[in-house]
C-alpha cells in the first residue's frame, strides 16, 4: 500500500505492450536517423584542414561554457531576444535532462535491480516541480520569439540577399525550416502539458500538486466536465502526439536549423577571441596564397558555415550592407554553406533553391562569392562581434581576398595603392624621404628614435604623416606631448606603413615585407613603448607584430593623454565645455577594447559627451578599413561615413564630432562636406581639443 501512495508515476501508463514495443521501435528509428545525419555533418568537418582550435578550447573551456550558460553573446544589445532564448535554452536543457532521467531510471536502473530506482518519492516531487516550471519558461520564450519573428518582423530576419538578383534564388525553404522548427518545439511543449494534465485529471494523485501546471490543467479539465474516461482517451492521444513529435524532432534535428543546438555549442567552445585581430598566416606549401576551394577550409571554418542560425545580427550591423554593397556577412556564410552541402554533404532538408545549378565546379570566387562582395568588406569586425554563435567572418573574407590579390582581381586604385606601399612604404605614392616633413612646422625638433633612446617611440602612420589635414593633428599631438614633458621620438624615413590594412586587403606578402622593414628599423631603436595615434597601426603592432619579435607594449595616444591628465602632467587651463559626441574607431574599440580612455580624456578636459546610439563595441564603421579607403566607393547608396554623420547630427546640439583616428579625420570631414552638414557639426581630433584645453 505504501508503494501505491509513494509519489511516482508509471512510465507507460495507459499503454499496452504492443504500443510500448511500437514506441521503442520508433525511438530506435529516430535515433538511427539522427545518427546518420550527425555523422554526415561530422564527416564533413573532418574533411576540413587541421586547426589547433581544440587546444584553444581546452584553455578557455570555462569561458566558453560561461558564455553559453549565461547567454552573454545572445543577450548583448538584444536583451529581450536574448532572455527569451535563455528561457528556451534552459527550459530545453531541463526538459531534456528530465527525459534522460526517466530513461536512466526505467531503461537502465530498473533492468539491473528495480529496487534501485530513484525516480520516485521526494526526488520525483522536485523533479515534477522543476520540469513544470522550466516547461513554462520554454513555452513563454518560444511564444516571444515567434511573435517577434512573425509579428514584429525585424529587418534582421528578412532573408533577401543583397548579392543576388531576386529571381536567381528562393529562400522559401529557410522560412519553412524556421516555421517547422518553432512549431515543433511549441507543440512538443504543449502536448507535454496535455499528457500531464490528462493523467492527473484521470488519476488525481494528491502529490501531483507539485506539478503546478499539470494540476491546474487537470482542474480546468474537471471544470470543463471531462470524464475520467475521456481524460484517459485524451491522455492516450496526447501521449502519442507528444511521442511522435518528440521522436520526429530527434530525427529531424541534424537535417535542419535545429542542428544549431549541437553545432553552436561546439562553435562557441572553439571560437577564438583573437579572430580578426590576429590573422592567420597563409597555409605553408599551399598551391594558392588564399582560399580557392572548400578544400582550403579548416574544420572550424566548415563548422562556422553550419553554425549560422540566420539571426541577421551581422546582416544589420554590417556597414557595407547598409551602404548598399553586395555584402551581407550572413549571406556570405549561408552561400558558402549551401555550396559546402552540395559538395561535402551534411544536407539540410529545407534549403535555398536556385533555378540554375551552380556549374562553376569547385571554385568559390565567382559562382559562390562575388569578388565585389569580398572587396566591400571594411573589416570593421561588427559581424564577428555581433555574432552570438562565434562565427568568424572577417578572417574568412581575408583568406578569400588573398586569392583575389593573387589573381590580380582588384580595383585599379587599390592596385596603385599596393604598388605605392611596396615602392615607397606609404599608400600616398609620396617619397619615403618626405615622411617626416610634417615635423617641419613644429617649433622644436622631434627626437630621432634611430639615434637617441626614447621612452615612447611614436609610430606615426601614413595618414598622420602625409595627409595635410591630419599633419595638423600630428603637430598638435607633438606639441601636447612636449608640453607634458613626454620623452618621445619618431623613426623619420625608416618608418613604413605598419601593414594592418595591407594584410586585411589580402596582400600577405606585402604585409610581411612592410613588417620586416619596420621590425628591422625598430630592432635598432631603444624605447620603452610604442605610441601611435593610428588605431590600424595600433592593432597590428599590438596583436600581430609580437609574432615577429616586437616585445614592447603599444599605447594609443588616447590612453597616454588620459594618463597625462590623470597624473597631472597635463593640467586643464581652459575647460572645453563643448557639447561633443565621440566616434569609437573600429580598430581601437571593437578590436582592442579601448573605450574608456578617450572618454576619460573628454571628461577631464570638460567636454560634455553625448553618446550616439551606436557606440563602444557597437560603433559604426566609417567605411575606410580593410583597404576600403584605397577603393572606389562611388557605387554606394549612402557611404557609411555619411550615415554616421547623419546619426551624430540627429543627436541635436552637438558641436563637435570627436575622433581618435587619422583616417576618421579625413573620412568624416569629407562626409560632413558632401552631405551638406557644414555648420551643423565639426570634426575634431581628440588631440586638438586637448591642446586647446591645456
Amino acid at each position, binding site marked *: 500500500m505504501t508503494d501505491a501512495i509513494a509519489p511516482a508515476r508509471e512510465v507507460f501508463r495507459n499503454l499496452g505492450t504492443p504500443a510500448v514495443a511500437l514506441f521503442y521501435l520508433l525511438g530506435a528509428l529516430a535515433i538511427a536517423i539522427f545518427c546518420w545525419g550527425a555523422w554526415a555533418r561530422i564527416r564533413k568537418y573532418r574533411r576540413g584542414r587541421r586547426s589547433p582550435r581544440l587546444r584553444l578550447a581546452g584553455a578557455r573551456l570555462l569561458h566558453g561554457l560561461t558564455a553559453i550558460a549565461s547567454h552573454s553573446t545572445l543577450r548583448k544589445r538584444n536583451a529581450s531576444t536574448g532572455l527569451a532564448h535563455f528561457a528556451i535554452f534552459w527550459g530545453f536543457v531541463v526538459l531534456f535532462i528530465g527525459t534522460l532521467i526517466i530513461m536512466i531510471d526505467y531503461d537502465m536502473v530498473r533492468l539491473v535491480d528495480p529496487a534501485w530506482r530513484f525516480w520516485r518519492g521526494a526526488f520525483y516531487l522536485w523533479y515534477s516541480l522543476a520540469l513544470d516550471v522550466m516547461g513554462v519558461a520554454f513555452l513563454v520564450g518560444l511564444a516571444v520569439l515567434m511573435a517577434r519573428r512573425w509579428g514584429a518582423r525585424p529587418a534582421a530576419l528578412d532573408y533577401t540577399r543583397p548579392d543576388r538578383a531576386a529571381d536567381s534564388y528562393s529562400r522559401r525553404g529557410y522560412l519553412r525550416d524556421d516555421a517547422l522548427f518553432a512549431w515543433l518545439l511549441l507543440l512538443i511543449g504543449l502536448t507535454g502539458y496535455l499528457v500531464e494534465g490528462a493523467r492527473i485529471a484521470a488519476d488525481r494523485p494528491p502529490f501531483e500538486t507539485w506539478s503546478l501546471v499539470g494540476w491546474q490543467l487537470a482542474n480546468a479539465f474537471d471544470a470543463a466536465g471531462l470524464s475520467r474516461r475521456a481524460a484517459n482517451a485524451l491522455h492516450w492521444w496526447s501521449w502519442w502526439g507528444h511521442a511522435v513529435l518528440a521522436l520526429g524532432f530527434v530525427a529531424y534535428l541534424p537535417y535542419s536549423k535545429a542542428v544549431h543546438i549541437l553545432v553552436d555549442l561546439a562553435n562557441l567552445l572553439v571560437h577564438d577571441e583573437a579572430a580578426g585581430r590576429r590573422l592567420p598566416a*597563409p597555409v605553408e606549401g599551399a598551391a594558392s*596564397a588564399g582560399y580557392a576551394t572548400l578544400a582550403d577550409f579548416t574544420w572550424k571554418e566548415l563548422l562556422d558555415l553550419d553554425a549560422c542560425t540566420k539571426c541577421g545580427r551581422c546582416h544589420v550591423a554590417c556597414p557595407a550592407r547598409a551602404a548598399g554593397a553586395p555584402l551581407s556577412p550572413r549571406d556570405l556564410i549561408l552561400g558558402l554553406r549551401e555550396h559546402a552541402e552540395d559538395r561535402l554533404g551534411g544536407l539540410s532538408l529545407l534549403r535555398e533553391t536556385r533555378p540554375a545549378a551552380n556549374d562553376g565546379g569547385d571554385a568559390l570566387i565567382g559562382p559562390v562569392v562575388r569578388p565585389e562582395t569580398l572587396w566591400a568588406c571594411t573589416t570593421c569586425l561588427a559581424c564577428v562581434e555581433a555574432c552570438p554563435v562565434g562565427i568568424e567572418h572577417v578572417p574568412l573574407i581575408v583568406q578569400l581576398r588573398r586569392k583575389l*590579390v*593573387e589573381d*590580380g582581381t*582588384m580595383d*585599379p586604385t587599390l*592596385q596603385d595603392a*599596393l*604598388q605605392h606601399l*611596396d*615602392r*615607397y612604404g606609404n599608400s600616398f*605614392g*609620396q*617619397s619615403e*624621404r618626405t615622411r617626416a616633413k610634417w615635423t617641419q612646422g613644429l617649433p622644436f625638433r622631434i627626437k630621432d628614435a634611430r639615434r637617441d633612446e626614447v621612452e615612447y617611440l611614436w609610430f606615426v602612420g601614413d595618414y598622420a604623416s602625409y595627409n595635410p589635414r591630419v599633419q595638423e593633428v600630428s603637430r598638435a599631438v607633438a606639441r601636447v606631448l612636449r608640453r607634458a614633458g613626454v620623452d618621445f621620438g619618431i623613426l623619420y624615413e625608416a618608418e613604413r606603413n605598419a601593414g594592418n590594412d595591407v594584410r586585411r586587403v589580402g*596582400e*600577405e*606578402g*606585402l604585409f*610581411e*615585407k612592410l613588417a620586416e622593414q619596420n621590425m628591422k628599423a625598430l630592432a635598432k631603436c631603444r624605447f620603452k613603448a610604442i605610441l601611435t595615434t593610428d588605431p590600424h597601426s595600433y592593432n597590428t603592432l599590438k596583436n600581430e607584430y609580437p609574432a615577429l619579435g616586437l616585445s614592447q607594449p603599444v599605447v594609443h595616444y588616447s590612453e597616454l593623454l588620459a594618463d597625462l591628465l590623470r597624473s597631472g602632467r597635463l593640467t586643464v587651463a581652459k575647460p572645453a565645455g563643448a557639447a561633443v559626441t565621440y566616434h569609437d574607431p573600429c580598430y581601437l574599440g571593437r578590436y582592442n577594447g579601448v573605450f574608456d580612455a578617450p572618454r576619460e580624456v573628454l571628461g577631464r578636459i570638460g567636454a560634455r559627451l553625448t553618446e550616439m546610439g551606436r557606440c563602444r563595441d557597437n560603433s559604426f564603421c566609417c567605411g575606410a578599413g580593410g583597404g576600403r579607403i584605397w577603393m572606389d566607393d562611388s557605387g554606394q547608396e549612402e557611404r557609411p561615413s555619411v550615415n554616421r554623420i547623419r546619426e551624430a547630427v540627429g543627436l541635436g546640439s552637438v558641436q563637435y564630432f570627436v575622433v581618435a583616428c587619422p583616417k576618421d579625420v579625413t573620412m568624416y570631414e569629407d562626409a560632413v562636406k558632401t552631405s551638406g552638414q557644414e555648420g551643423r557639426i565639426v570634426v575634431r581630433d581628440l588631440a586638438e581639443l586637448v591642446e586647446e584645453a591645456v
Partner: protein
Amino acid sequence: MDIVVPIKMVPDLVEELEIDSEGRDLDRSSLKLRISEWDEQAVEEALLLRDKHGARVTVIALDTGDVDETLFTCLAKGADRAIKLLGGEAAQGSSRATASVLAKALKGIPHDLVLTGVQAVDDRDGQVAVFLAEALGLPHVSVVSGVEPAGPNAVVARQEYAGGVMAEFEVDLPCVLGIQAAREAPRYAPVSRVRQAMKTLKLEAAAAAAPDAGAGSTVRRLAKPDAGGRAEILEGSPEEVAEKLYAILKGKGLVKS
C-alpha cells in the same frame, strides 16, 4: 613565338630631382629608379599575347644598379626569361647608343616580336624602338596600343589617333613595335610571388657590347625651369577682363594696335 621586351629604368619622379655639379645631367647618386611606364605597358602587352596565344616572353634590360627587382617582378608576372646586360652604363641616356647595344644583344636571342616602350621620361627623342628596328633591319610601327597575331608570320598593330580614329597595320614578323599602351592595365605582381621569384629564379646575365653609335645629340645645359611664380587674376565682366588683358599684352609689346 618569341617576344622580347627591352625595358629601361628611369628616374622616379616622386623624388626630388637634382642636377649634378656640371649642370648637364641629373645627380644620379640620389636618384631612385623605376621601370619606365611605357616599358611596363610593353611587358603587359607581351604577357597578354602570351596568355592568349602562347609565346615565350624575354625581358631584357641594361644593368643600372637596381634593375634586379624590376626583372624579378617581370618574372613574377609571368615572363619566361629575364636578361640583364652588364656594363652598358655608357649607353644610358642615349636612344641611339641604347638601341645599338640592344641590337647586338638581340643577335643571340630569338626574337619574332620586339615590344618596347614608345618613349621614356628621360628620353631626348623617344627613338629606341626606331633605332633598334633600323639596326636589326626590321619593320617598325610606333605608338602602338594593341597587338594581335595575324597568321603565323605577321601581327596587326593598332594605333589610336585623336577624335577616336584608329589605324591597324599588318606587320611582317620579325618586327619592332614601340608600345604606347597595352590593351589592359599592367597586372599586379603579388609581393610574395616576386619574393618567391627572387629566391628560386635566376636572372641571366650577358655582357653589353660597346655601342657603335654616338648619342647623336649632346646636352649643353640642364636646368630646372625658372619659377616664374607670378600670376594675376583678372576680375570683372568679360568686357572689362578683355580690356585689361589687351592693355597688358599691349604694354608688353605683344600686340600691335
